[in-house]
């Protein structure tokens, strides 16, 4: 032993093993079944609530101090969705709440270019009512519209939809859910008779063939990938995606199809299945309509034509069809790669058709399953009162209007008998001068809407723009005349519905900054200020509204009249719809259509199809590349208003906007790795940094959607049935700078 180490051992003064800095990181048993946690954050209680980012709907176990205030969190261990795990966003869910750019006071701009000034709530409410009523007086009640979100609670969505449509005489309102799952809604409604994603996450663990279409599960829904990892049947995992995504890397098979060739591909696959009699004739005979027409329709999609159009070799088409045929429990899962296209509804239905004709529905481990994006997109589908009348009802159906009017105890004339404009039509309405005032709640179209420059111009054209958000500086809030400060997830009570139809609670575990109020409270104040509060006398707490909503679902496919209250949801780990009155204690992982009966009046599913259409933004000599957009990393959420406020998440993705480009293309155009290039579409032009990779095919490039610039390029085309924007493919050219 050397002299020095002897001395250092003898003289403790020379080596500080413990001290104030070391103590900062001492871990201590946290109690509450937590194990060790940071010693300065030991909880006095814990409570479980659903994460507020994506529609996976993970349970988060929030650690509370003696004032019931959140001081930390861990993924809930015994929650039926995530079994003890969370993605990086879930781990960081509390951080964005304490950001310095939180809106904490109503802000008002006397003129468009003036500096925003803080105002009291009563001034803000009065300005809101004065300006919107003024516009309505001049241009008619329909000249005001709203754009909502899939990020707030069902009770709040219902309040917004009811307040605007029943109370304020607004007809046109839509949500950002139009951008993510409108296609799935339309496809399911037409095929099944109701917007009913039929699966439970348990199906991931029970399939022997899992087909992921336009879905980068590993990055977009990491916890759902976890469910696949826990599948004990060594399933064949097929990824159909133009890019070799993280999920394609992890899968057992990857079909790198040409962008937007999926409709042809699924018709071609259906044709092979039918030609080989690899179909479930009994199921088709007993439970499906229009099979003959469908079989006839797909006949022309021969393997050769399908191969030519999709870029997949004929023998691989056969292999895939055979895999579907031989699988005992085949499940099909799709996400935005399907939903965000110009013929997306038919594509989704082509997937549904594959499940139907092979009898892969209603059994464990099967289904044609749309994985949703936002934490409460599914709540908005049922309760936002935009596309559907509350509770999955139909505005144009007089019986439905009567039922809702009676249940809510409001005059039936208050309920519009016509459908509302969709998001893109509302934007078009601003252009044509029909929409003069707009109220945007919890969404950021100046970043996320397609062909962004036009949208920004149109926001400037409005007579009055109100933005209600938890941050005062979103790209959209910068255009607002009035900013209403909203409490965030974690600062209010309510319920979410996740992708597998699980209704669960979120709780108030943190104080909102300053004067920020829950959206629910804001709607209540506006009802009061507008003078229509008498319609909403019972709407005085989220839980009361939840009880009203459960009553509205009576006799609907989404009947949840059996759910008593929030406490029941909390204690059961969430409850999947349907849950009608009288449902007993039940399996917590339920899928639909066990008996093969669907929601159309004849109980049969419909095989819906039509001819593929030409790409609305074709490539040519000037714009030779296809631009694909998508999720960049698991640490980024949509327009990043929240995730950019977490330094821990910021570290997990590239700081630059990186354009994925194939090395052959780079060589051909003399473009270097990590160099700035100009990318130009027919809509706009931006500068990005190159990332040379063979994960993208030649002739294609990829940009993540989280950067504000990406949507300057995207093409304003829409699926005609769902009105969902076509984010996933547009024509571009690349130039070295």
């Amino acid at each position, binding site marked *: 032993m050397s002299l020095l180490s002897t001395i250092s051992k003898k003289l403790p003064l020379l080596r500080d093993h413990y001290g104030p800095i070391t103590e900062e990181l001492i871990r201590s048993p946290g109690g509450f079944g937590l194990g060790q946690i940071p010693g300065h954050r030991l909880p006095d209680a814990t*409570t479980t609530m659903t994460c507020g980012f994506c529609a996976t709907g993970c349970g988060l176990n929030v650690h509370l101090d003696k004032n019931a205030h959140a001081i930390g969190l861990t993924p809930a261990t015994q929650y039926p969705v995530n079994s003890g795990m969370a993605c990086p966003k879930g*781990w960081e869910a509390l951080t964005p709440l304490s950001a310095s750019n939180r809106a904490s006071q109503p802000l008002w701009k006397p003129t468009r270019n003036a500096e925003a000034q803080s105002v009291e709530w009563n001034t803000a409410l009065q300005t809101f009512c004065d300006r919107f009523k003024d516009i309505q007086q001049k241009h008619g009640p329909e000249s005001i519209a709203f754009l909502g979100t899939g990020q707030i609670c069902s009770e709040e969505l219902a309040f917004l939809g009811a307040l605007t449509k029943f109370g304020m005489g607004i007809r046109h309102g839509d949500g950002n859910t139009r951008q993510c799952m409108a296609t799935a809604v339309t496809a399911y409604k037409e095929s099944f008779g109701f917007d009913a994603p039929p699966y439970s996450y348990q199906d991931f663990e029970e399939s022997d063939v899992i087909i992921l279409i336009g879905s980068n599960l590993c990055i977009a829904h990491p916890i759902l990938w976890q469910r696949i990892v826990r599948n004990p049947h060594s399933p064949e995992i097929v990824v159909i995606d133009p890019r070799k995504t993280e999920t394609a890397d992890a899968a057992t098979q990857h079909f790198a199809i040409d962008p937007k060739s999926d409709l042809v591909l699924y018709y071609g696959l259906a044709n092979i299945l039918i030609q080989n009699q690899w179909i479930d004739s009994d199921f088709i005979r007993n439970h499906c309509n229009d099979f003959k027409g469908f079989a006839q329709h797909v006949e022309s999609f021969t393997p050769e034509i399908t191969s030519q159009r999709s870029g997949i070799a004929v023998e691989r088409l056969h292999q895939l069809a055979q895999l579907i045929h031989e699988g005992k429990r085949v499940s099909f899962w799709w996400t935005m790669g399907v939903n965000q296209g110009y013929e997306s509804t038919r594509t989704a239905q082509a997937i549904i058709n594959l499940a139907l004709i092979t009898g892969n529905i209603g059994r464990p481990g099967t289904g044609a399953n749309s994985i949703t994006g936002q934490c409460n997109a599914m709540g908005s589908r049922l309760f936002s009162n935009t596309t559907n009348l509350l509770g999955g009802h139909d505005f144009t159906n007089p019986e439905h209007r009567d039922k809702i009017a009676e249940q809510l105890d409001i005059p039936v004339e208050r309920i519009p008998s016509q459908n509302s404009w969709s998001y893109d039509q509302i934007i078009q309405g601003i252009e044509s001068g029909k929409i003069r005032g707009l109220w945007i709640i919890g969404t950021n179209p100046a970043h996320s809407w397609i062909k962004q420059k036009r949208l920004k111009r149109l926001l400037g054209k409005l007579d009055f723009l109100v933005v209600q958000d938890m941050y005062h500086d979103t790209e959209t809030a910068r255009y607002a005349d009035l900013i209403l400060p909203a409490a965030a997830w974690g600062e209010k009570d309510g319920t979410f519905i996740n992708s597998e139809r699980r209704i669960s609670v979120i709780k108030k575990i943190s104080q909102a900054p300053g004067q920020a109020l829950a959206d629910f409270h804001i709607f209540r104040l506006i009802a009061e200020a507008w003078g229509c509060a008498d319609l909403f006398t019972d709407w005085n707490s989220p839980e009361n509204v939840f009880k009203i909503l459960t009553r509205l679902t009576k006799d609907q496919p989404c009947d949840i009249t059996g759910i008593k209250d929030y406490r029941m949801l909390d204690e059961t780990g969430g409850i999947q719809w349907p849950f009608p009155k009288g449902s007993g204690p039940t399996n917590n992982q339920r899928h639909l259509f066990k008996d093969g009966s669907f929601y159309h009046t004849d109980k049969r599913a419909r095989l819906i199809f039509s001819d593929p259409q030409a790409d609305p933004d074709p490539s040519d000599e000037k714009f030779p590349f296809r631009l694909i957009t998508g999720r960049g990393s698991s640490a980024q959420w949509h327009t990043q208003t929240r995730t950019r406020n977490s330094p821990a998440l910021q570290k997990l993705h590239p700081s630059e906007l990186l354009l994925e480009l194939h090395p052959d293309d780079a060589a051909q155009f003399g473009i270097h790795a990590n160099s700035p290039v100009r990318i130009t579409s027919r809509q706009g032009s931006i500068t990005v940094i190159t990332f040379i990779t063979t994960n993208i095919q030649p002739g294609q490039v990829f940009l993540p959607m989280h950067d504000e610039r990406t949507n300057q390029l995207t093409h304003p085309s829409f699926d005609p049935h769902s009105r969902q924007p076509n984010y996933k493919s547009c024509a571009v050219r690349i130039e070295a700078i």
Partner: protein
Amino acid sequence: MSIVSRKKNATVVTSIEKLASGETTLIDQLLAEQQSLTAVASFSQQHSSVEKPIQARYYRDLIPLNDPGKGEQYSFEVDLDACTGCKSCVTACNSLNGLDPDEAWRDTHLLIGGSGGNSRRQVVTSACHHCEDPTCASGCPVLAYEKNPVTGIVRHLDDQCIGCQYCILTCAYDVPKFNARLGIVRKCDLCQSRLAEGEAPACVQACPNEAIKIRIIKTENIPSTGHMIPGVFGSSHSHPSTVYLREKNLPADAAPDQLYELTPQHAHSPLVWMLCLTQTAVGLFLFQFLLFQSSAFSSLNSLPWMALAGLITGLTGIVSSVAHLGQPSKAWRCFLGLRHSWLSREIIAFGLWMPLAFLYTASFWFKIPTAATIILGATTVLIGLFSVFCSVMVYAITPRPFWSFPRTALRFFGTTFVLGVAGTLVLFCLSGNSITGLAITLAITLTAKVAFDVSALLPLTSNADWSPAKHTAMLQWRPLRPLLIARLFFYLISLLLLPLAATPITALLIFTTIFTGELCARSLFFRAVSTITTQP
């Protein structure tokens, strides 16, 4: 609100006023309700009396049942095939360990390669590898690291650390992370307190795909050659214990995407000044002493002033190095690492040099025996040169090809020589001696030195896909180009000025431009070094 609009919307006014009347308005009521936290009161408490971690059911098989035995230690085992790059391990480590918001002890790297259907990206998650021969510990001047003899965990003593950040340079894997708030580095301790209680480390608990495990490894089985992953993460530097498993083959050309991340490294400005100033000082004393010893120049009037200039320069350099420390008040312990830390040796060497240089300089003013002055001078020069050698070694032993011994020695002793000559030039101009020989020597050595520096750009012309040398070249050519141009600019200016150097002012100007050029070069030395942690 204007009066006009109030009148126009009478109904609104009524409802708002109704709101505002009474003791508490609805607004007040809702604002109060907003601030009351009710989750505990409204819902039943689960697990209130459960002491054992219920998460254990998921990680029981991911950690060893026993402590390591003799000749064994803990190690991370990462299943690369199972990792899909969700990066939950990074945030869980931050959250469960109570780190600062922007602090991360776990990193994720991306390897990409292959083509067509064989292309593959592989996210590699890594934390401290708890090396068998931890170079963080051997480099630390204050013994702020210790390797636990039983568990093999390399622990950092946070209260011992002086924040010199040298371990960041000696670690081949960029593991220690500087925390500016605390002025120290911190790093992964394998959640030793958790393992001690049979709980899994944070990252192990949090991986949805069970890709990270803790295993007990025989220390003799820890590789001291080869790579943790073929082609990347070399093992020879410090014998890291982490084991990466994979069945799916990585493409042969898989390389870290960091190559494309052309972000210059930390500037380390105090160190740039410290190195240039101390090397200049040693150079000035070297030439001063040589002149003093030569019969032709020993009587020059300004010789003592040259020593004084060297003393002031050296002192400034040493003081500026303190600015680099996060915890300067603890720096007195820097002798503790003398046995194995070149940084310790550098500090001690300059600490000895300083008083010697002071006494030697003072000896010109106080009449002491010439022999004593000579002995002082010789010792000052020798200890000074040894100090510069220590400076060289501080960087040469780090796993960075750009800082290899010959390259760093050429740079540091080059600076010592060139600025020593430039100082002599000033002296000669002051005393009216001929400077032709000096000027030619200076022009040649300076040119050679600059040519050597510029040769680091040569890999730009190579077709090799990537290498640390090419990365360094790319960093200099792209983001650091202004600094590179500045370095060449000051070189050219000093070269142009040389023929004019007859007056002390011009000579001083030449000295300053050369010194500024060296500052730029030293800045490039730090900023353009490739720290690709996954390098071979």
